[in-house]
């Protein structure tokens, strides 16, 4: 059986640097940081007191109150991004068979805000269980894909992938596979996360994974800088509409790019620490290149996982040099997490959108906050430090790696005009 081709026909995003896909791209291209002191709760006793929040977020701007309060904020973000992408792809058009449209979403954590609120309320009571009937449907991660399908009546395959920070790259690959295998014609995919809560920030602080640069939040996410001290927590969502190529052509859809391959692997090393040799990361990029049927030399841009942790950044760079050899010096490499922070389970989706926008605009978004070279990293590599660079991008790769040792890479190609 030959596999069907899959293209991207819609984009949506709500992020710390812009609340629509075009605004998000504008933020990235301008090198804008989304980090600021936490406003969602009183973080004064926390080791980290800043994050990349979606700015001035008010659910009432997007939902009727009755509807909004039945969704955790991570599901609200999911619907906002998916609605934008669905409108962009014009999926409400006549003639689209909704039985052949599915939703595969990604979230690493799900409804942490709702879980935390209900547990706190119970602990403050007298032991009488007064759990809200919407608590479980708000908390479970699959409420994101469920709510998107209910809103738009898409009756195709529907579920959520969870693999920590690789979640939404895995959802993209899953959606890709269902179309390739002729089990759907169109898939709404993407990811969302909203973990800027006491338990989220406190939990990641306990892992010693987050930056504590409280005196300069906007300079804290600094992948590949010698003084990097951990990731900055972000929140938001992005969505991509994947569509079978002939289906898209037949209805005259706008085609952003072709999704040509995906790879997955596991570190099989430690539940939170990356394998310092980067073996799983080498494997995942090789798997993705093989699936795409391209040579490493064809890749122009890698949007790296690059979270700004001391160990992880180095391991990924080492792996890139192993996989790409001499061509590593010809690549543009950048970590847009320097601007957006780390959106955990939504990272793969927002970074896939960044790759596609880079192709559209012929611009590589930068790795901001570079001050001091890390002597451990090869200075001949182009990390796109501090300012966007013009470059025609024909092939872009996006890497994401998650706690648990999950590694995922996806590869997009520009279609000839």
């Amino acid at each position, binding site marked *: 059986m030959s596999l069907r081709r899959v293209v991207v026909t819609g984009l949506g995003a709500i992020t710390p640097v812009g609340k629509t896909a075009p605004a998000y791209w504008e933020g990235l291209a301008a090198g804008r940081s989304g980090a600021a002191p936490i406003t969602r709760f009183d973080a004064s006793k926390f080791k980290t007191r800043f994050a990349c929040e979606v700015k001035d977020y008010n659910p009432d701007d997007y939902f*009727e*109150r*009755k*509807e909004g309060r039945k969704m955790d904020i991570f599901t609200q973000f999911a619907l906002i991004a998916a609605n934008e992408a669905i409108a962009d792809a014009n999926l409400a058009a006549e003639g689209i068979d909704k039985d052949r449209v599915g939703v595969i979403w990604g979230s690493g954590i799900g409804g942490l805000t709702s879980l935390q609120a209900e547990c706190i309320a119970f602990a403050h009571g007298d032991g*009488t269980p*007064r759990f*809200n*009937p*919407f608590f479980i*449907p708000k908390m479970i991660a699959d409420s994101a894909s469920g709510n998107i399908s209910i809103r738009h009546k898409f009756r195709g395959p529907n579920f959520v992938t969870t693999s920590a920070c690789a979640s939404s790259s895995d959802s993209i690959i899953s959606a890709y596979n269902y179309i390739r295998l002729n089990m759907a014609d169109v898939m709404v995919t993407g990811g969302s996360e909203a973990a800027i809560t006491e338990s989220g920030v406190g939990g990641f602080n306990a892992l010693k994974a987050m930056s504590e640069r409280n005196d300069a939040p906007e300079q804290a996410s600094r992948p590949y800088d010698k003084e990097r001290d951990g990731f900055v927590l972000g929140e938001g969502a992005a969505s991509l509409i994947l569509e079978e190529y002939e289906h898209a052509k037949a209805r005259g859809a706008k085609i952003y790019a072709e999704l040509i391959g995906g790879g997955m692997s596991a570190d099989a090393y430690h539940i939170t620490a990356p394998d310092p040799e980067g073996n799983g990361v080498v494997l995942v990029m090789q798997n993705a290149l093989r699936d795409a049927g391209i040579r490493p030399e064809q890749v122009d841009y890698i949007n790296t996982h690059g979270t700004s942790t001391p160990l992880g950044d180095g391991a990924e760079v080492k792996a890139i040099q192993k996989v790409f050899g001499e061509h590593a010096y010809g690549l543009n490499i950048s970590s847009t997490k320097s601007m957006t922070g780390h959106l955990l389970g939504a990272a793969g989706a927002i970074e896939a959108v960044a790759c596609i926008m880079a192709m559209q605009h012929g611009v590589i978004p930068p790795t901001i906050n570079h001050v001091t070279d890390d002597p451990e990293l090869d200075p001949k590599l182009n990390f796109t430090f501090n300012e966007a660079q013009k470059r025609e991008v024909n092939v872009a790769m996006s890497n994401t790696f998650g706690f648990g040792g999950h590694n995922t890479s996806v590869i997009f190609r520009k279609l000839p005009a």
Partner: protein
Amino acid sequence: MSEIAEKVKAIIIDKLGVEASEVTPEASFTNDLGADSLDTVELIMEFEKEFNVSIPDDQAENIGTVGQAISYLEEHAK
């Protein structure tokens, strides 16, 4: 209107997102005010919390309108 009736109406307006004018004594939560089965469970829970009562399931089943809620609570609220 009693203080209890005022509070019951306020809870219904808040949870079901309806207008005060719709919340008449005869109004049914499911047929008139757009509640689904989970909304109804939530309303009962909110009444329990607000009025510090415990409403057994078999009695909760008989509370389907605004008026029924008000009379039950006027009788049982502590």
